[in-house]
């Protein structure tokens, strides 16, 4: 009886949490849309640049959450897709193809093929072995990037110019790139939300909870997981294509394992399996990094223990913390 009681309480609380998340994300998007106007008061170029970067990593963290939070696929090689997207832009731009539609199509196609092939192999393993095999594939791509001497090898290559959209230099102004990134972020969020709520998302979550049962009632989790992995990879490649435009530079460092670790950290920092959490988590992560770096040269000595404290004292990351504070206030 008491179990049923807690069940209902938990459901109510979960619904409340989802409502809170919706409010949080709408507020975030509105604040982001207004940011360039507010930034006019301060060092505008710097702030817009920083927030654009934050949003790009928010897209990447969101894409990771789709497979991590809803499919329980811990990818330790997600930075590979960012690298694929960035290199698609960099390589095409160095050959004079500057149209973003073409570049993006190439980036998405490359990511889809890479995700399909590596995903099909990786998903044969489970748990820790999945973590390690995704790491192995991203390391292969990293070293491939290092050996691409025609495109700068280890040093990377600079973009001759930012991408154009249908011939228009839309991205050449920082504000143009900012709003394009914001539009991509909102689009990706809505897409992820729709995927998670759909039948496809339910099967994915079912496979996360109990793959044997899902198989017993007639689903093949493998196929659903693979499709989710491909979608997630393509979304991260979009982030990579935007990142290349934002920095004007592409290098193998985008694909290093530390980057993949950072993406995981951002996602967990925000709250796994909430979609909203990783967006806020990525932005908070980069903002903290930037702020601490301004305080002291040795900011990592503060940032590292902070991450440890988040794990030890704030389970569920920022979203978990917010839910507990909200729960206390309402209850």
């Amino acid at each position, binding site marked *: 009886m008491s179990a049923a009681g807690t069940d209902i309480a938990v459901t109510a609380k979960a619904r409340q949490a989802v409502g809170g998340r919706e409010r949080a994300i709408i507020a975030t998007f509105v604040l982001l849309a207004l940011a360039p106007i507010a930034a006019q008061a301060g060092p505008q170029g710097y702030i817009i640049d920083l927030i654009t970067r934050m949003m790009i990593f928010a897209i990447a963290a969101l894409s990771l959450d789709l497979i991590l939070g809803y499919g329980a696929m811990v990818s330790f090689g997600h930075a590979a897709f960012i690298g694929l997207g960035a290199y698609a832009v960099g390589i095409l731009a160095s050959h004079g193809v500057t149209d973003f539609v073409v570049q993006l199509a190439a980036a998405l196609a490359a990511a889809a093929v890479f995700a399909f092939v590596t995903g099909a192999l990786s998903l*044969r393993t489970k748990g820790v*072995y999945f973590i390690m*095999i995704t790491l192995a*594939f991203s390391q292969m791509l990293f070293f*491939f990037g290092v050996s691409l001497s025609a495109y700068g090898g280890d040093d990377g290559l600079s973009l001759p110019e930012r991408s154009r959209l249908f011939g228009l230099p839309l991205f050449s102004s920082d504000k143009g790139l900012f709003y394009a990134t914001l539009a991509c972020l909102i689009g990706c969020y809505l897409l992820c939300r729709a995927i998670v709520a759909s039948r496809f998302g339910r099967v994915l979550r079912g496979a996360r909870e109990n793959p044997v049962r899902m198989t017993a009632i007639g689903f093949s989790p493998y196929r659903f997981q693979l499709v989710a992995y491909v979608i997630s990879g393509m979304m991260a490649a979009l982030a990579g294509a935007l990142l290349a435009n934002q920095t004007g530079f592409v290098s193998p460092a985008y694909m290093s394992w530390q980057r993949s670790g950072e993406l995981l950290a951002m996602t*967990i920092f925000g709250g796994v399996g909430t979609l909203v959490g990783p967006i806020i988590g990525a932005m908070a992560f980069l903002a903290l990094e930037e702020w601490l770096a301004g305080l002291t040269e040795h900011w990592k000595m503060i940032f*590292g*223990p902070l991450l440890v404290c988040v794990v*030890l004292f704030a389970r569920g990351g920022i979203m978990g913390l917010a839910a507990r504070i909200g729960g206390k206030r309402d209850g």
Partner: protein
Amino acid sequence: MSLTLFLVQTLNGLQFGILLFLIAAGLTLVFGVMDFINLAHGVQYMVGAYLAAWFTALTGDFFLGLLLALPTALLFGLLLEWLVFRHLYGRDHLDQVLATFGVILFLNEAVKVAWGSSPLSVPIPDAFSGSVRMMDGLLYPVWRLVVIGSGFAIAIGLALLVSRTRLGMLVRAGAVNAPMVSALGVDIGRLFMIVFGFGAMLAGFAGAMVAPILSVEPGMGDNILILAFVVIVIGGIGSIRGAFAAALLVGLVDTLGRSFGPQMLRLMLDPSAASQTGRALAPMLIYILMAAVLIVRPAGLFPAQR
């Protein structure tokens, strides 16, 4: 390819493999027994190297430095376990990844603050400097042979410890089913602490032994950590025997692949294309190896028996 060059590279590969084994041994036990992903294992290797460099500079003698560095590395490992890792057993793998990632950031920066960001160098101890003539035209540095020898000695000692002693039996039992071991009345918390401290000391020993060959610098543990993970995954998590075989395999494949890969390809491709693809393929080899092993045997080559 000449025979001498091949032998030299094989010895280099062995030395690299032994180094990987010393790091992977602790990692695979911690992973196998406690189901704990410790990304911070690489920085413990770095800390070992720094401690050795520091104590050597203080005392003026490498072996005295090593003698002081080992217990300090052990204490340091226990301190980390007490402060952070103890609270992460039984938690989600993701939490462990994030927390140990934080520890890496902290320690990489802390050594910069303590010892500066420029690399430290440790002189090779006088008794073992120079080279030894192994055959006609083959000179090999003595210190590298010492590294190989001490690594093999430790591997044998570790194998005996794990297979012949009560502690080893508990460790093996823990790798198969830790809750059951705990239910049988073993203080599993103490066992975890011993395993952890021991693993940290082995990693520290590896760092100290290669300090005279490599430069001691911040972040030196980051890449070797990933290789150690490759090793334990290929070998089968929780298996010392697997870690040993896989470490030598990875060490040899990586070293020989880098030096002879381009030459082998030259048999099939024209020289410039061969050196190009060779350079691209060589660093990827071990990851290709790992992916192949996992696809054929998803639990590694020597999985701990369940």
